[in-house]
């Protein structure tokens, strides 16, 4: 049913730390690997080894250059996947009921056996989180690894989305935003987590943490320098004093 639930019991989602992400694309690759073998049809590719490869991916990393007015540019790696919005426009536009948001945990999913591949949900999403599978012709999107997080056959440490499990820098975190004491709620509070394009009114569940402020060269650095050059003894000390005297 493509009407949105009035409220979801849990709000499962991700925190993505833009300060930490190094842009290695490990989460992208592990996402593709897991979701090709797990929930639904495999994530299709066309011309995977040809001149013009193209395929469906559920998680992609853009890299942005941010240039402040008075400081050098900085690079921010920017992972982007479905934000499992509370007010998901992709769900309500679906004509078949294939797209839905779960009342129990807030995960937005596609029932691939009902999807007609019209693509309207991808048009409705401002984030580009949905991609048509070029082989199966059904809409693909992040499932928050619904087939991992509740999977008793996996060791407990693996019951987390593939992207979170694989991130070597710990830039991605998984948890319940409905619980104010969860890891993700705390991180969002402490670090000033924000919504992407809040003006679109989608109320995304996933939160992004901003890059920590950079120190500026002209500012005094509080920490002690690791190496203080000493020039008061030995040959260098004598040379230093001799040159000083020369004026």
């Amino acid at each position, binding site marked *: 049913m493509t009407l949105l639930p009035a409220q979801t019991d849990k709000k499962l989602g991700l925190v993505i730390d*833009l300060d930490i992400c190094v842009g290695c694309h490990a989460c992208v690759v592990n996402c593709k690997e897991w979701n090709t073998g797990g929930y639904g049809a495999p994530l299709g590719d066309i011309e995977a080894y040809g001149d013009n490869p193209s395929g469906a*991916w559920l998680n992609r990393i853009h890299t942005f*250059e941010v240039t402040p007015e008075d400081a050098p540019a900085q690079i921010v790696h920017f992972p982007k996947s479905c934000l499992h919005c509370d007010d998901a426009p992709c769900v309500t536009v679906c*004509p*078949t009921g294939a797209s839905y948001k779960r009342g129990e945990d807030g995960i937005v999913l596609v029932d691939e056996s009902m999807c007609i*591949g019209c693509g309207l949900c*991808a*048009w409705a999403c*401002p984030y580009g989180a949905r991609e048509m599978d070029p082989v199966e012709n059904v809409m693909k999107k992040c499932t928050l690894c619904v087939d991992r997080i509740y999977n008793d056959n996996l060791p407990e440490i693996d019951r987390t989305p593939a992207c979170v499990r694989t991130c070597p820098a710990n830039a991605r975190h998984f948890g319940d935003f409905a619980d104010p004491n969860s890891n993700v709620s705390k991180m969002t509070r402490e670090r000033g987590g924000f919504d*992407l394009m809040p003006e679109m009114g989608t109320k995304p569940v996933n939160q992004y943490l901003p890059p920590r402020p950079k120190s500026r060269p002209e500012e005094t650095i509080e920490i002690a320098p690791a190496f203080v050059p000493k020039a008061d003894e030995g040959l260098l000390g004598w040379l230093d004093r001799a040159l000083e005297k020369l004026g």
Partner: protein
Amino acid sequence: MHPAISVIFFTVTSGAGFGLMTMIGLGFPMHEGLVAAFLSCLLGGGLAVAGLLSSTFHLGHPERAWRALSQWRSSWLSREGVIAIVTLLIFAAYALIWMFTGERIAPLGWAVAAGSLLTVYATSMIYAQLKTVPNWHSKLTPLCYLFFSVTSGLLLAGMIGKAAFILGLPTPTIIVVALGIAWVIKSVWWRRADTIGFSDTGSDTGTATGLGHLGKVKLLEKPHTGENYLTREMVHQIGRKHALKLRAIAYILGGIVPVIMCTIALFAAPVFFLAIAAVSMLIGLFAERWLFFAEAKHAVSLYY
């Protein structure tokens, strides 16, 4: 946005078909007899059905299209399908009664007209509802679709019907007035589209990434080396290359040529010249509809 030929054909053709059905339903004077009634209804219903069928060609799974009738409570696409089918069924009943009894039952006709207009409105709302595409997200979008549908329907009705006068004015004159109104609304729509950008939501790469407060945000590296579904479908730019030329073609073939043909039709061979006007207008609307998609920018382009 990617201009899919099947969807362009669908919106123009079914718009004209439902427009003609509106005219027939409202009691536009038509030739009498079984064959004339059959052919008149075949043109209206046939255009509407041809358009609807063509719209299923862009689906990944056309065999599941029937499922699209289920979510009318939330989805404009679903509503469109439901209203279109109900309207076509009422129209079929209206046409059969007309063909075999010679009688056009007015209340049934009004239901056909109301259903046809609602179908076109639902089609336009599929686009107008999308906040992600500012060009489309406007009350002017349904106005354009409705006026183009009614005007092309009126032109087709004038061509196949037998009304020399409507509301006291010669039929070609009424068609010229309708053409004028439709293209004025479209001009206003184009003027808004030219300047709107993402200003109605204030979105830019800064809000898309949430990094705008740090400085100027610019894409350094795309997430993929080639094209993907998003860039092909929503960051489509090739279609915009000839935008100005296509606008001129739309105005000339969709508006100016039909107006000239209608003017000539006032004096000689109305059926022939109205037929030229109708064909020209539909070709003009194909250009207009191509631009409707090709010129529209999607919010996801802010990430690219």
